[in-house]
């Protein structure tokens, strides 16, 4: 019921909304919950497991019952949803359903830095922020609500003025801080934006949560926290019930009593203390005692004390206040039990806890704490301020509280966690089964695991466990507080990192040509590389066979710009590369190129590629496409941390150069046309050399004779600015030879036919150069990183897995990559001894059959043996061979 006056709602702005299909009205400034109460709707969806009727229980983020789905967003608390015009909500029993595509809502993230972050915009938070900002420090105040006028509160008629004057004060209203990480890194959810806040100082003014009392049938609609009842009356001018009982263990509920009386409600007080204080208005009956049970068809109609039954439609409960220590605890601050509640003890980061969050419930004391924290923080960040005057606050005398953890009754209907529907009976079962740690009881009963993070159940649960074990809650300690402390949607965490922005896509300067010519793409690291170029009507297999045939019999071209490229410069560049690569580079002549392989210190192959020597003190290193960044990091690591005395420096030039491979018996003719100034004869331009020249269209180029296919082949390197122009020139000049663009699949087939391994495909970090059959590349003269490991007993084992070829007995059968190979006489019932696995497998145009590479135990000594690949529905038999399938003599390299 809406009261005729009062509240902070704007009665000139009526709003309509729909709940469970029924239209209602509310006002600007309402929450969904306050508007529901204004319309007499207190009851929400039944509970998750027991299907018991439930009602709005709180007025904030501690709400366990009133969960709603608003549009695409499930599991929102009606008590924190701001009412908007046309809002459509549905009540939920415990769980909601994620809408798969909430594409119409945009989520985002922001990074910000602040000198002082104040969390909580109540009186203490506002006081702390106002104080801290006065000297010019950058201050950010994050709170659920931030009224634009003076913040008024009990006992302070003029309140705290808004702090809008300070130039560097930023206020996020309607925001929730939910995660507190190392070095004062705090995550804040604010509407559709996730703020990542890095603060030099944090002031936590997160307040406290009122705790319920556990008694029989304590879960009916109409039973609410006392502070919530007061908040509904004073902030929203709604009265949740006309005939109220207030059940309390402490003084704070008497403010609710006053508010109820003032709103015209009839009130009876039940106070757990033997001598309740004289705080109730004239005419209100105060009983010393306990509520033992409640009654009602669904909504509450009566409550019972030990000796009385009182008719009522509202029961306001206050079991004391637990400081909201979630964020402080996440920051690794420790907690201490003060006999009533867990309060912050020792901070672990540069933060301060003030006010109710610190267990300081007296307003004046809280404001003093907040002021001191603000002054301290301002000084610490270099913008000192004098202590400001305190607002006038009436002092009060407090009668000590008398906590009640459990009122005797039927434990099956004494609810400890309303959201999880967990009862005292569940706790007794856990304790009876021998559990003592709250962590164990929590997991067994699920108490505190709901979306409300146990704000109204953790402390009562500890109280009940303690009572069962005959100890105090302080002896038990709390369970661990973890982020997020309020529900946060996955969509918010993802922000705009979705779709094409989810992960970067890297493209080469020639990418547009590939797209225009119908390439299918493959992801290699972040790169999009052409996989194959199907012609109309071609499937992948046909296209790849055609591309392979062109490279073996005519001429083909590939965009190899994705290769990692590093310039290694300095007088000791050769010495440095000698220490990195298994083979030698120091004596490589200027103008020549050499293939090299690198190992990690454990002797396992790490990367490979061709290096050219541009000058005495300058090398041009290429790496695998996926390994570029790792190799540069590797070089820097050794250079900086082990051999700073070597004169050598590294610069990544991956995008500086575009690289185009031109491959096949006709490649010499094409290169001759593309680079007219170049003598392309084998004598003038031999294998593994390079030449600087100018292309037919005037572009400067560096052309190398490098082959990854065994064919006569060239690599044309030009500035990235000219990558597309060079590609077009080669394509044009190659037209008379029917030059064929090819993709990564064809490249893989061609190299596999020659038995060239691909690091990362045929190796997996457990493979040495010897395992690959490449002992020829391992220098005996010099040391290199990993060399000593190759002598380790395990690395030198003769029966390690070797890279070998596999030829399926049926030449049409294609072994799947990754298939495990077993001996032909192995029993096919587990455990089946594995002999190794297929690393690469293709159809070969030139071999007119399928073939594969595999890592097989002792494989080099098993040539000719037949192994089996059991694939569930079938078994493929294959013969172990040498890994080189084509042109074993290397006759094709020079054309």
């Amino acid at each position: 019921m809406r009261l005729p006056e009062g509240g902070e709602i704007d009665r000139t702005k009526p709003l309509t909304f729909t709940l469970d299909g029924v239209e209602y009205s509310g006002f600007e400034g309402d929450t969904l919950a306050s508007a529901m109460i204004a319309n007499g709707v207190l009851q929400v969806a039944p509970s998750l497991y027991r299907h018991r009727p439930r009602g709005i229980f709180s007025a904030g983020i501690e709400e366990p019952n009133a969960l709603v789905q608003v549009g695409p967003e499930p599991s929102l608390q009606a008590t924190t949803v701001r009412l908007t015009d046309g809002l459509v909500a549905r009540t939920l029993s415990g769980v909601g359903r994620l809408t798969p595509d909430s594409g119409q809502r945009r989520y985002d993230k922001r990074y910000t830095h602040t000198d002082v972050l104040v969390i909580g915009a109540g009186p203490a938070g506002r006081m702390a922020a106002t104080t801290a900002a006065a000297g010019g420090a950058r201050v950010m105040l994050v709170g659920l609500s931030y009224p634009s006028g003076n913040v008024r509160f009990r006992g302070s008629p003029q309140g705290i003025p808004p702090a809008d004057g300070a130039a560097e004060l930023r206020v996020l209203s309607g925001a929730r801080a939910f995660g507190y990480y190392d070095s004062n890194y705090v995550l804040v959810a604010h509407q559709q934006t996730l703020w990542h806040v890095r603060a030099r100082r944090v002031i936590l003014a997160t307040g406290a949560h009122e705790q319920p009392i556990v008694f029989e049938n304590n879960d009916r609609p109409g039973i609410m926290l006392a502070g919530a009842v007061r908040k509904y009356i004073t902030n929203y001018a709604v009265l949740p019930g006309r005939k109220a009982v207030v059940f309390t263990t402490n003084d704070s509920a008497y403010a609710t009593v006053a508010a109820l009386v003032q709103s015209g409600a009839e009130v009876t007080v039940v106070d757990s203390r033997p001598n309740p204080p004289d705080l109730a208005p004239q005419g209100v009956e105060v009983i010393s005692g306990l509520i033992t049970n409640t009654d009602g068809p669904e909504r509450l109609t009566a409550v019972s004390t030990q000796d009385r039954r009182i008719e009522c439609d509202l029961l306001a409960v206050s079991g004391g206040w637990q400081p909201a220590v979630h964020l402080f605890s996440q920051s690794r601050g420790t907690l201490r039990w003060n006999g009533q509640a867990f309060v912050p003890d020792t901070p672990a980061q540069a933060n301060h806890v003030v006010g109710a969050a610190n267990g300081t419930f007296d307003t004046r004391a809280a404001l003093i704490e907040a002021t001191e924290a603000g002054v301290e923080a301002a000084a610490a960040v270099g913008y000192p301020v004098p202590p400001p005057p305190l607002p006038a606050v009436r002092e009060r005398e407090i009668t000590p509280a008398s906590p009640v953890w459990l009122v005797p009754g039927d434990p099956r209907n004494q609810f400890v966690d309303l959201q999880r529907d967990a009862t005292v009976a569940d706790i007794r079962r856990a304790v009876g089964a021998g559990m003592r740690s709250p962590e164990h009881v929590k997991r067994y009963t699920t108490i505190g695991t709901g979306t409300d993070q146990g704000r109204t159940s953790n402390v009562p649960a500890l109280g009940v466990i303690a009572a069962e074990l005959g100890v105090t809650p302080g002896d038990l300690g709390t369970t661990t507080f973890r982020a997020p402390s309020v529900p946060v949607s996955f969509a918010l965490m993802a922000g705009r990192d979705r779709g094409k922005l989810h992960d970067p896509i890297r493209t080469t300067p020639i990418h547009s040509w590939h797209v225009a010519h119908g390439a299918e793409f493959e992801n290699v690291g972040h790169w999009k590389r052409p996989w194959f170029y199907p012609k109309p009507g071609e499937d992948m297999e046909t296209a790849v066979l055609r591309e392979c045939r062109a490279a073996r019999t005519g001429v083909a071209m590939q965009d190899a710009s994705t290769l990692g490229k590093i310039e290694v410069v300095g007088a000791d560049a050769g010495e440095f590369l000698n220490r990195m690569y298994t083979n030698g580079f120091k004596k490589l002549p200027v103008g020549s190129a050499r293939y090299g392989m690198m190992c990690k210190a454990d002797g396992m192959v790490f990367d490979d590629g061709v290096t050219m020597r541009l000058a005495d003190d300058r090398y041009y290193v290429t790496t695998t496409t996926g390994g570029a960044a790792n190799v540069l990091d590797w070089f820097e690591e050794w250079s900086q941390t082990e051999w700073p005395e070597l004169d050598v420096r590294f610069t990544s030039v991956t995008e500086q150069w575009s690289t185009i491979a031109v491959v096949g018996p006709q490649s010499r003719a094409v290169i001759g046309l593309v680079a007219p100034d170049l003598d392309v004869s084998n004598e003038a331009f031999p294998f593994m050399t390079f030449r600087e020249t100018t292309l037919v269209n005037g572009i400067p180029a560096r052309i190398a004779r490098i082959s990854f296919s065994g064919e006569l082949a060239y690599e044309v390197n030009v500035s990235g600015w000219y990558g597309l122009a060079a590609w077009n020139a080669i394509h044009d000049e190659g037209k008379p030879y029917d030059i064929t663009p090819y993709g990564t699949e064809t490249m893989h087939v061609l190299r596999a036919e020659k038995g060239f391994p691909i690091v990362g495909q045929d190796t997996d970090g457990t493979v040495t150069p010897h395992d690959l059959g490449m002992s020829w590349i391992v220098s005996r003269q010099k040391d290199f990183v990993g060399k000593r490991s190759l002598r380790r007993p395990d690395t030198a084992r003769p029966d390690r897995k070797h890279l070998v070829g596999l030829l399926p007995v049926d030449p049409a059968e294609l072994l799947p990559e990754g298939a495990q190979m077993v001996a032909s006489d192995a029993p096919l019932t587990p455990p089946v001894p594995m002999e190794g696995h297929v690393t690469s497998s293709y159809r070969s145009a030139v071999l007119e059959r399928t073939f594969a590479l595999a890592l097989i135990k002792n494989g080099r000594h098993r040539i000719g043996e037949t192994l089996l690949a059991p694939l569930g529905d079938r078994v493929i038999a294959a013969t172990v061979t040498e890994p080189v399938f084509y042109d074993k003599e290397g006759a094709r390299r020079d054309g």
Partner: protein
Amino acid sequence: MSLRRSPLAGYPGITEIPFLTMVNVRVRPTGDAAARISERLGGPLPVVPNSVVDAGSRHILMLGPDEWLVVGPDGDTGLPDLLREPSASVVDVSANRTTIEVRSRDLLEHGCTLDLHPRAFHAGRCAQTMIARTQVILWQTSDEPVYRLLVRGSFATYLADWLSDATGSTSSTG
């Protein structure tokens, strides 16, 4: 038609400053080689990390204790040879990155973890950092503010896509 093509040629709504000359210089900061390079540039190699020194039409960005990026205008083709020194690593990286100009701090704060508040970052500062999921050299050229993002060519379209998308959301989240 020019044979040169910048990574963001034709990309709508993005201010690309293409074809700037960029030379990576790595040299011991205190030696003769560094002194000779400074002399030829007409401006000292800055020694405050993440700062920028202007030398006529060129700018010298300090990237690390022994590393600088010298940025000249389009067509400054003599720059690499000008800087070459026997005991320095001088590498032409003009085509390695392209340059995007951005005039909003707010926009960058959607994807950059650096503190860009004028008290912490201002004209004459540069930083190697991440924007969204790509590495950039961020360089503030004016306090208006104007920023330059030097991004690898292969990541340029991703960054342009990200900036375009973020521009759409800054208008609503302020």
